[in-house]
């Protein structure tokens, strides 16, 4: 019997090492592009060690038993009677208890590492909406840059202060690892320190309806100089746009993610396209037709369910709290789309 224990012991060790090497070299995680990713991958490595060892600890003796202790042909007797071993049972209760508590402790330390706050962090306000993202940068002279792309400088902690306009969304850039839900009615926050320049994507991780799969927007990590250059241009655009109705309308459309449903180039979408909208004849779901004018668009924004274009019955557009002036700006912008 001693021989069996020795062989299985060696098998467990060999198998653990092989599985660990295999998993470690398989490149299972995406690129590490943030300081938090480094901490999280450290924890992942610990878990891979535990998984490799425990898998081998059970499967090696199980497989060994299946081969060595299989029933021989013609043998109809029972095996040797062995009911249990209290010392062994106590051991495999107490030892794992200490191990899991140690892992929980390390997990807590690891959490603290990823939460470390930099008081100088750059604050970006994030809004999630069905099905787009908007990013609002700190105001300069009363003008705010709003974009549907997240531009951040490398090696500087950013503090995302996030909320949602409609349902729950979740901010996740796999290369940054960390993830946080955006909940209507409250502000949640997430700290990320990007460490690797590149183009990534934020992908909504919490099921949020029809186009959940496509709720992705670019995240661009660049050097401080490139970021400053981008910001200067964006700021200038924002200042210019705020002086014309079309420009203000376009900014409102960007800030509220209208384009997630209404294409501006005639492509089909969740809602009717805005390309050539004003003056177009639309068929409604009750069979009547309507020629789209400013008043119709105004009504459709204020009361989206009042008239529904045929084919869009199952697409409930939410109401937005736009003022009449804002709607006029949006209409001015829509007029330019033709």
């Amino acid at each position, binding site marked *: *019997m001693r021989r069996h224990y020795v062989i299985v012991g060696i098998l467990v060790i060999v198998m653990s090492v092989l599985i660990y090497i295999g998993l470690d070299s*398989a490149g*299972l*995680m*995406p690129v590490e592009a943030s300081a*938090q990713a480094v901490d*999280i991958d450290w*924890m992942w490595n610990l*878990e891979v060690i535990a998984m490799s060892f*425990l898998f081998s600890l*059970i*499967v090696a*003796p199980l497989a060994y*038993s*299946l081969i060595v*202790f299989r*029933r021989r042909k013609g*043998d109809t007797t*029972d*095996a*040797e*009677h*062995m*009911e*249990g*071993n209290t010392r062994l*049972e106590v051991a*495999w*209760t107490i030892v*794992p208890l200490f191990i899991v*508590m140690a892992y*929980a402790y*390390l*997990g*807590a330390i*690891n959490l603290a590492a990823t939460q470390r706050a930099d008081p100088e962090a750059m604050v970006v306000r994030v809004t999630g909406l069905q099905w787009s993202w908007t990013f609002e940068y700190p105001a300069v002279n009363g003008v705010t840059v709003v974009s549907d792309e997240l531009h951040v400088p490398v090696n500087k902690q950013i503090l995302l202060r996030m909320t949602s306009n409609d*349902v*729950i969304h979740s901010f*996740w850039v*796999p290369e940054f690892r*960390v993830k*946080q839900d955006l*909940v*209507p009615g*409250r502000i949640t926050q997430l700290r990320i320190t990007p460490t690797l320049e590149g183009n990534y*994507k934020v*992908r*909504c*991780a*919490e*099921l949020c*309806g*029809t186009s959940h*799969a*496509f709720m*992705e927007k670019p995240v661009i990590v660049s050097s401080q100089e490139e970021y400053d250059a981008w910001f200067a241009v964006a700021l200038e655009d924002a200042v210019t746009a705020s002086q014309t109705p079309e420009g203000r309308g376009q900014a409102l459309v960007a800030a509220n993610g209208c384009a997630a449903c209404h294409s501006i180039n005639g492509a*089909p979408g969740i809602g009717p396209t805005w390309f050539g909208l004003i003056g177009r004849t639309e068929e409604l779901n009750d069979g009547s037709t309507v020629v789209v004018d400013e008043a119709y668009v105004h009504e459709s924004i204020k009361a989206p369910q009042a008239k529904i274009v045929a*084919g869009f*019955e*199952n697409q409930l557009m939410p109401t937005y709290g736009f003022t009449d002036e804002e709607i006029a700006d949006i209409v001015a912008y829509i007029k330019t789309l033709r």
Partner: protein
Amino acid sequence: MRNTNPVWKGLLLLLVAGAIGYGIGLVLDLLVSGAINTSGPVGAAFAILFAVTAFFFGVYGYRGITRGLVYQVVGTLVGALLITGIRALMGLDTIFGVYLFSEPAWVVGGVVGVVSFLFGVGVVHDWVQWSRGIDTPEHHTDEPGWEKYFGVSLDHKVIGIQYTITALVLIAIGGTFAMIFRTELAASQLQFLTTELRLFNQTGPQIYNTLMSLHGIIMIISILLGISGIMNYAVPFLVGAQDMAFPRLNAFAYWVSVPASVLMLLSLVLGGFDTGWTGYPPLSARAPVGMQMFFLGVFTAGWSSILGSLNVIATVVRLRAKGMSAMRLPILVWASVATSIIALTATQLIGLSFQLVMFQRLFGMPFFDAARGGNPVLFQHLFWFYSHPAVYVFVLPGLGVISELLPVFVRKPLFGYRWVAMSSLGIALVGFTVWAHHMFTSGMNEYLRVPFMYSTLLVAVPTGVKFFSWVATLWGGKIETPTPMLFVLGAIIVFLMGGLTGPPNAAIALDLHLHDTYWVVGHFHDTIFGGFVFPFFAAIYYWFPKATGRRMNEFWGKVHFWMMTPSFFVLTLGMMVIGLRGMRRRIVDYDPALGFDFIQLLMTIGGYLIALSVLIFIINLVHSIKHGEKAEGNLWNSRSPEWQVPSPMPVHNYDVPFEVVGEPYDYGLKDSKYVEFSPNGQKHIEFTKEPEVQPHRH
């Protein structure tokens, strides 16, 4: 028609009635909305209701389940029309809705339909009679042959098989849904679930959301019914009882799950729902009427779980054979009790959380509406307080099956019986304290996440005890590997993979990466296949001869195992790999730039092979009922009491009661016995001498 096979007759009627129902739906749609919508929901809703009902009519005639379904259809229409009438009298603008009836009308119709079903099928008949002061016979005589399975029976073995068959039907439906979207996911970009598609008023991505959501909940209900099948069938004869403690309640618990399943299917065509089975508001507060049918279906199925587990506990506490002390209970009974404790006390919370959203939608009560002072995160706490322990409900009976069958095929006692028994209770109790580990990214208090990490990791300890004990049981045995044992071994390895991929999710910071990805999808498919699917198949292969007197074909059983197991590994390992690399859950399409196409294709092939292997299993099962090799004796050479009497078992299990005289799993101990049959073995109430106490007969 006399000599026609009733199944063919049923299928023929299914097609005819489906077509008629579709026609009626289109006409109603035309009357109300003024336009014919051939891919619309109303025609489909009537087609489904008519077709299912007609199928059972063809197979079984107008009684039992058929009458229940007819009552449900009529009840649904009556309830809906009542509300529609009231709305008309109140002079409301919207008397009808997009789905013919308005949402309140559908909900009330759904409730009335469920109650009507229960009256129609006859499961409340005795209670109604008693309430009117009329006595009914203590025992009902079942029809001979297969027909008893289509009507109300009070026999726990019949009900156990009814549960099992219903579970298999739901597994087939839920599996088919999964195959549809797995096919779509085989390559990036939208293949056939495109945005131009219109089916039941839903676009391709919406159909995906509905099918994905229904796959989840239908599989969950099939699991709940599957474990009820195992427990109902086995627990009474394992403890030496003649039946469950409350046979009428037992039948009620089964039958209430049937109208619940119909409601689930209706949700598919009434606009579907796009929330997943978790139904988080605010999304679920905005979804189409199908959402309400889903809520109502889960609410109704919950009764089945609560009442069924009450019955299991009462049976084990009150109806054990003489000498069956706590530490001589078969290990599956311990697992069943542990599961039943959770199901009895936690199921209410999912019902409550869904009910609150129903009320938010129906009456405008803003429980989870942040704009009006509600709290969306509160829902998640209520929901997970059941839905995490629920996964232990799913797996504990399966782990019990593993522990129960292992000694039989190893010919050695279960190693550390007491520890294995107590570990089930340990998992059940610790399981109540871990729910918020599903909410690490939810925006709940950041510091409160830490205690939930500790409690979650604690679950690993009793689970580890089970694994170590199983390996120690195998060690030094004389292992045989017929089909049930293959599935037991498969279960151990697959559940091990599920178990080991759990702790990384508990480490909070790491979970911030893993949460809501395919890693988690792979993890829980491993736990559920290892903890339920494999043991469920093992139990069916193992007890099939007990139920029928014949055994299932060994060759095809082994084909089933060897086809399913490797395919399953490809599927779930693929899920975990792409999950780590950035594949989110519940998406109809993924970014081609991520480079997942090849792995997704492999996973889809794996999925098809699993489906094929289950099809082989079902054919084997049906074929073996009549044509299997005869096996009326102690086929597995087990010590358990049910195998000491011929198969199939008589109606009240043991003609001569037994007394427990030894340990259940003392294989290899010379001249030892677990049970001894003797007339004085019976401790509990004797049915024939004195009727059971019924306080309602005044």
